[in-house]
């Protein structure tokens, strides 16, 4: 038998539960910190972004309609799968992210911890962020958060996995569907995360991951009328004031850029929800 010929992986996009190449056919070279070639990643176009929003929109009702307990279970299972793929993520963070073995291990640990932390909130954030309001009448008056719908996210650019997980998980917890633009320079862990998601119980379309240039794609998502919220966590190098202005046309919720990796916080979950208040007569109960 002849010697084994290595088969390099084709890194593609993750849209609607499938792994298509970019509609544009474009790719870009992913390199190590020292500039050595690592892989070709898909360079998503505005039409890939558009397709992602369509996929996300059609996934919202199913994901938001799942019970909070079920969403928590599904998200928890992703953490289990992340553990199983640990070696792959460590390797990608080491080569593509320029981390040492120990740093890469710590980042994977942190990413899994953040994921677990958010998964636990799925059936608890309602109690914390919702409320029974005091009213002067024979009514129950209850405010509960509901997912806002489709959330577009620019992932932190300097952290390939932890950054992505830290913006992805909080948007998913409440039942939103997400279109996320991965780190441009470290996209490989994002696509490996997509492979984890594809083999988990997250329905197709709930998470859509694009690789490529955030500067090129984000304006289309910011102005897209069918996107409900925008997380600009990793957009500090973009013209993000313009993005906010574009988003304001359709009254999107916008989170401004943050340096580094956003800390895990219930506020991030609550930000991507809308509060619904219902009045219910007391006498009937």
């Amino acid at each position, binding site marked *: 038998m002849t010697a084994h010929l290595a088969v390099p992986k084709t890194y593609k996009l993750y849209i609607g539960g499938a792994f298509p190449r970019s509609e544009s056919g474009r790719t870009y070279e992913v390199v190590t910190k020292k500039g050595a070639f690592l892989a070709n990643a898909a360079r998503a176009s505005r039409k890939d972004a558009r397709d992602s*929003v369509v996929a996300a929109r059609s996934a919202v009702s199913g994901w938001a309609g799942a019970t909070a307990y079920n969403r928590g279970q599904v998200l928890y299972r992703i953490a289990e799968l992340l553990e199983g793929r640990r070696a792959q993520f460590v390797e990608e963070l080491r080569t593509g992210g320029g981390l040492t073995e120990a740093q890469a291990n710590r980042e994977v640990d942190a990413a899994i911890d953040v994921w677990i932390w958010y998964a636990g909130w799925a059936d608890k954030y309602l109690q914390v962020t919702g409320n029974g309001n005091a009213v002067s009448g024979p009514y129950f008056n209850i405010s509960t958060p509901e997912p806002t719908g489709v959330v577009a996210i620019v992932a932190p650019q300097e952290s390939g996995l932890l950054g992505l997980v830290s913006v992805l998980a909080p948007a998913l917890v409440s039942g939103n569907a997400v279109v996320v633009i991965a780190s441009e320079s470290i996209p490989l862990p994002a696509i490996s995360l997509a492979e984890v998601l594809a083999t988990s119980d997250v329905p197709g379309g709930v998470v859509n991951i694009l690789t490529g240039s955030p500067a090129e794609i984000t304006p*289309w998502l910011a*102005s*897209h*009328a*069918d*996107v409900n919220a925008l997380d600009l966590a990793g957009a500090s190098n973009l013209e993000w004031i313009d993005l906010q202005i574009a988003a304001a046309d359709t009254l999107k919720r916008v989170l401004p850029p943050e340096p580094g990796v956003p800390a895990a916080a219930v506020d991030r979950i609550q930000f991507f929800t809308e509060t619904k208040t219902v009045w219910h007569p007391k006498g009937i109960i």
Partner: protein
Amino acid sequence: MTIDHAIALAPASRAVQLIGTDLTEKSLKLHLEGLSGVDAVGLEARAAGLATRSIKTTSKAWALDTIIRLIDLTTLEGADTPGKVQSLVAKAMYPDPTDPTTPRVAAVCVYGDMVPAAVAALGSAHAAGSATGINVAAVATAFPSGRASLAVKLADTSEAVSAGADEIDMVIDRGAFLSGRYGLVFDQIVAVKDACRRADGSYAHLKVILETGELNTYDNVRRASWLAILAGADFIKTSTGKVSPAATLPVTLLMLQVVNDWYRLTGERIGVKPAGGIRSSKDAIRYLVTVAETVGEDWLNPHLFRFGASSLLNDVLLQRQKIATGHYSGPDYVTMD
């Protein structure tokens, strides 16, 4: 055994003209089965080739408006109500209320009992024979199965016509067609055409639905198209929308080819209506390309080509809004169906 049991076929001028005065089941069958077979591979390759054209910017804007003008906006549900028809008509008249430059659709297509509701809702916008305005099309003849006696089918048709329907979408008896009883199908189409006659002697336009999804082969589609045209169809329509597959590009291309053959033979223009399964603007634009390349751009007018669709209109409106505003629109900005 009598092989040649001649059925007295109803006189239809086109058939007499083509086949001759000894119009019998046998002569009809000989003619239809004498049609050359369809090259399925070539047909599909041609359709696939036509589907690759890239239509952009001003051509796309033109194509989108043309699609709207060619739509038969359709609601054919058991749960239809006069209210539903009313909102359908409102959408037909003002597809995009935020943009008054949006053209109107060609017609609304409803069940026969909803024709009065549609006519009332249209009011002065009802075409009723004039060149401008919106037509009311009614499906008839025990749509979608066509499984009823001829008397019932004719009553169904004449009731819709007298209620003000401008166009009748009839279904052929696929059972009879597939078992080779072409004469029966022919007679029924001729009889329904006759029932389309209004009191003043004019005729409601007759669209004959072949239900190509049940005809199994392209050869059958070609025969059924000829049969419908010979019997007097003004339009041949692919499908009811209730059977899968509904309209496909190769089938529509094939029907357009028959229409083209008929035009070359007689100089008479027959319309084509693909219906069912056309949901995106991109798909619809492929049909426009196919029409223009097969029978010519003359056919891109509501008298000769229609789309039977409901959700297609919303997608076209989203695309129009994208062109107008420069950013992507969403389903929140068009009406719900």
